């Protein structure tokens, strides 16, 4: 998708992809909601929707091209599984909190999942949402933090450090767990645990995961793939 469309943001898509696929394929029920707060990982979201039959091959091929439904960030309309257009960071957790609150007020058995980035926790509104969600004891809300440790112009430590982020999160009345975000069994393990509080799962991930020349490199927040890089990346992923 990204190669054909000559667009970037692939690094943060690959860091988020494992958890997103697992949630969509194994945990998300029709009554549940998934909100991608880090809208720049729309590619991972579209692939996850494709993997569960909600988008077609043709849809994916249109990614980021003229007249597409699959914009670079999730669209506001046209895909029922995408409840909100995201892309400006710091909105998703509030939207997820409101969604979970609505279900809670009606006594519905519905779960809400929200995937944020790590740098997104530099947005004040994300903390507003955490305060609100923790205060209202939104037990059926699960927040996944794609902690790939890289943002626009450097590492999160170098730009605006909160390291370790999870220690700050543990100051709230929420269940915080830190796992390997590329370990499928660890992701399943935490998602299957009994919940008594809102859960925050910090996924320790690698930007550009699975492709050696992308891994942990900031430029893959931006760069499109050359044909040679694309072939190398595919070969590595298929071999791995």
């Amino acid at each position: 998708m990204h190669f054909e469309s000559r667009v970037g943001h692939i690094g943060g898509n690959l860091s988020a992809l494992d958890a997103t696929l697992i949630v969509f394929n194994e945990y998300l029920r029709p009554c549940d909601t998934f909100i991608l707060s880090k809208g720049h990982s729309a590619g991972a979201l579209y692939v996850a929707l494709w993997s569960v039959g909600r988008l077609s091959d043709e849809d994916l091929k249109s990614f980021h091209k003229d007249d597409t439904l699959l914009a670079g960030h999730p669209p506001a309309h046209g895909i029922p599984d995408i409840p909100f257009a995201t892309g400006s960071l710091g909105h998703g957790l509030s939207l997820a909190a409101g969604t979970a609150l609505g279900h809670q007020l009606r006594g519905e058995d519905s779960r809400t999942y929200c995937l944020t980035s790590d740098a997104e926790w530099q947005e004040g509104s994300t903390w507003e949402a955490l305060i609100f969600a923790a205060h209202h004891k939104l037990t059926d809300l699960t927040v996944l933090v794609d902690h790939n440790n890289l943002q626009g112009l450097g590492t999160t430590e170098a730009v605006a450090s909160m390291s370790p982020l999870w220690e700050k999160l543990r100051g709230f009345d929420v269940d915080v767990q830190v796992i390997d975000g590329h370990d499928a069994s660890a992701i399943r393990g935490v998602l299957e645990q009994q919940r008594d509080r809102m859960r925050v799962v910090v996924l320790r991930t690698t930007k550009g995961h699975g492709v050696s020349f992308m891994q942990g490199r900031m430029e893959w927040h931006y760069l499109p793939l050359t044909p040679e890089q694309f072939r190398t990346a595919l070969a590595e992923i298929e071999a791995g």
Partner: protein
Amino acid sequence: MRTQFCDAMVKRAGSADMVFLTGDLGFMALEPLQAVLGERFINAGVSEQNMISVAAALARQNFEAWAYSIAPFCYARPFEQIRNDVTFHKLPVKLVGNGGGYGYGVMGPTHHAIEDYGVLLTLPEILVIVPAFDEDVAAAVERAGASSSPTYLRLGRGEKPEGYQPPAYAPWRWLTKGAGMSVIAVGPLAGTYLAAFEALPEAERPNLWAVAELPLERNPLPPELVGQIKDGPGVCVVEEHVKQGGFASSLALHLSMRGVHPRAFRHLHALDHQYDRYGAQPYMREKSGLDVRGMLAAIS
């Protein structure tokens, strides 16, 4: 208008699937609503950005979601949340801004809401309701509650003359009749001029119109007013809103595009935020020339 607002909301709460969010405001005003709504009266705390997004999510689940604050905290601070989360999805969240215009005049510039509807009307499908009189509020709440699009309710302070009984709420009302200019007042300012206009001889008395809903595309000009603008001595728009993006601009464009050219076009508006002294709403209006004296000078 807060008391009337609370009364109307209490009444509506009985029939609507309502959730009311407040940004930690409403002391000595909204307690009856809280008592009726119970857990659906949510103090979102001092976090207006979150409050608006939460309201959007609730509206998406078909709750009737209201979000209340002092006006600028409800549209300026969370503008992007209104834009992205509410209007991009056409969600019928009801934003309620208390103290519209200079309602919190002496509280200082941070509390002045003098660019609210101009800013909000740049967004898709927003309906703005500006009740003119306390008696309008019940109908305004019903209009906002029933609105299927994002709605901003600007609450102010009703200012009718003693003993005056305003006509029933309507998006346009013709309040005084004469042979003078047509004066279009947005919201409560209409009541400010009533007594002075009534005291004028018929030949000089303006046709005073109160407009309570914007934009014009959703609340077209009444034919009588169009006739006055075409054939009368001119039109004057008065609004407690800055010049840029105000109702006068949209009216001028609207008329111009239809080839309607009034003999005179005047605009009384709020000055910008650069004041060196502050005072209550009448003081701030006087500073902007929105008081009765300013109005009479503008139409003479």
